């Protein structure tokens, strides 16, 4: 099992030497977005909580990292740290309030707060530059590592940092899945009442799960801002909360590699469709309906059921 995941990471590492330039950047993006989907899946797949406002954590990481760079010229590692901390703080604050509700109310409340943060990013456009967004690359100092100066514009630096973010997220998700903590989360997903009866404080576990999930989303957001240089409020919109849901559903809810598979496939599908029509969201909508109607397990969920029962 460990071999499979290490093999996937090795394959992703090797891929950078053979990919043409266009796909090189795409795969780097896919890896960062997969970290976002991995975080989303911890909440949805392992804890059974569906969030419709996850873009707020992605945006917290993005603005948390992007704004200090843009206004204060903070270096990349510190900015990344600030991004993570913003996501974690938001996840905890949101969780303390929203986890008081359950079931459909949680969904609606997450959607509402996601949208409130999006509107706030438009309302305070003196600072965030709203819809238009801003470019961080001019203010971003290159990374100094062991005497070498690594500029963020270099494709190899982008790719390998994206891979690092993805690998760290994958390791975190897998470690959580295999730990006793992860088993309690699955217990909550399957039957919260019974888990409480066994003496677990389900509120704290759900809050913890939300914190991990939000932090991974923020890591992806911060990474996206630093590596691809653009910060804007589109990344806080509802569509950006729906995307990780779609990716995870397609790849397989509650599987470790599903988020990567779903993100990669949907990224290229949307890329292809938007080459044909500007109404590519029609396709996104149809995909959502088709998945719940005919393919609720997702790709790796189906693979696990039919061929590989040990797949985490």
């Amino acid at each position: 099992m460990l071999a499979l995941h290490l093999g996937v990471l090795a394959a992703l590492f090797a891929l950078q030497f053979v990919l043409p330039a266009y796909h090189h950047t795409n795969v780097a993006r896919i890896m960062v977005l997969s970290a976002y989907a991995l975080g989303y899946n911890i909440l949805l797949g392992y804890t059974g909580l569906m969030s419709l406002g996850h873009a707020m954590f992605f945006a917290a990481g993005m603005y948390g990292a992007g704004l200090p760079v843009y206004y204060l010229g903070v270096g990349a590692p510190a900015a990344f740290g600030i991004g993570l901390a913003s996501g974690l703080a938001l996840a905890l604050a949101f969780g303390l309030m929203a986890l008081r509700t359950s079931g459909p109310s949680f969904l609606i409340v997450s959607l509402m707060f996601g949208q409130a943060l999006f509107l706030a990013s438009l309302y305070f456009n003196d600072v965030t530059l709203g819809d238009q967004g801003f470019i961080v690359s001019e203010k971003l100092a290159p990374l100094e590592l062991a005497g070498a100066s690594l500029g963020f514009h270099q494709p190899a630096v982008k790719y390998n940092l994206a891979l690092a973010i993805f690998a760290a997220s994958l390791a975190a998700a897998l470690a959580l899945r295999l730990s006793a903590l992860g088993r309690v989360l699955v217990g909550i997903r399957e039957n919260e009442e019974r888990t409480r009866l066994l003496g677990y404080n389900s509120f704290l576990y759900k809050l913890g799960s939300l914190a991990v999930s939000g932090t991974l989303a923020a890591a992806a957001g911060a990474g996206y801002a630093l590596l691809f240089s653009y910060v804007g409020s589109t990344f806080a919109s509802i569509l950006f909360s729906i995307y990780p849901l779609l990716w995870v559903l397609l790849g397989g809810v509650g599987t470790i590699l599903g988020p990567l598979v779903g993100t990669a496939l949907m990224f290229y599908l949307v890329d292809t469709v938007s080459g044909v029509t500007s109404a590519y969201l029609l396709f996104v909508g149809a995909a959502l309906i088709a998945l719940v109607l005919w393919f609720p397990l997702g790709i790796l969920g189906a693979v696990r059921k039919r061929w590989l029962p040990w797949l985490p």
Partner: protein
Amino acid sequence: MSFGPHLFLALLEGTVTAFVLALMALGLSLVFGVMRIVNVAHGEFYMLGAVLAWACADAVGTPVAGFVVAMLVAPLAVGGLALAADRWILRRIDYHPESTIVATIGMLYMLQQAVLMLYGPDARPVAPPVYFVVQFPWFGYSGYKLVVAAASGLLVLATWMLVTRTRLGLYMRAAQQDLEMAQAYGVPARRVYALVFLLGAMLAAAAGVLIVPIEQAHYLMGLDPLLLSFIVVIIGGLGSLRGTLVAAFAVGLSDGIVSVFFSPTLAKIVATLLVAAVLVVRPGGLFGEERA
């Protein structure tokens, strides 16, 4: 304009918003109360109502006739769409709460983009069927807005009577309280579900027809009312019709006041914070069923 009249204008605007919001949120709340599902495409039914109202006005010509035709055609057309969605999508996933949310999000994008492709990205105005100005000492106010408030109030009242005074309403309340027991007593659950979903969609479409002479018809116009309706049903308590109406007025008035004095965007943010405050005190909403 001094503070007093300004506040009066804000309250007036807020009252109109509150009535329309009550109509929107009532449909959402009814669907949740009876069927236990959250319909994320509710705002798109409203948008479709508005766009169809523009199409009717465009086809018919005179504002009054166009409005009357739209008031008949739009709710029926949108209702038909809702019935199809119930039959071909929601029933097939057995109204599973999370699958339904995903499916209605899918419907949201499909409807939005279909309208974008067929109708285009422009916001298009519709002339009001009646035009008069109510002259207050400080300012004149659009009479049509008051007509909208009154018409919304009537539709809310009619729905309320339907739920509390008719056999269908009795079936709805029975299904809400205990579905299995209701079915054992012969309540045709499938038909009740279909009718409730139809009713919710028709109310949203009617709200869209009413609002379009005030706001222009645009393919993205469904999102803000959806958000406000969600805020209303969460504050009022999911599934409680009384709570929905009370909260619609609280949210509508605060939205009117903050919009007039500050900005509409800030109003939405404030309303969301209002939800946070309510949830801290009462997680189930003001009139929600007490559930652990």
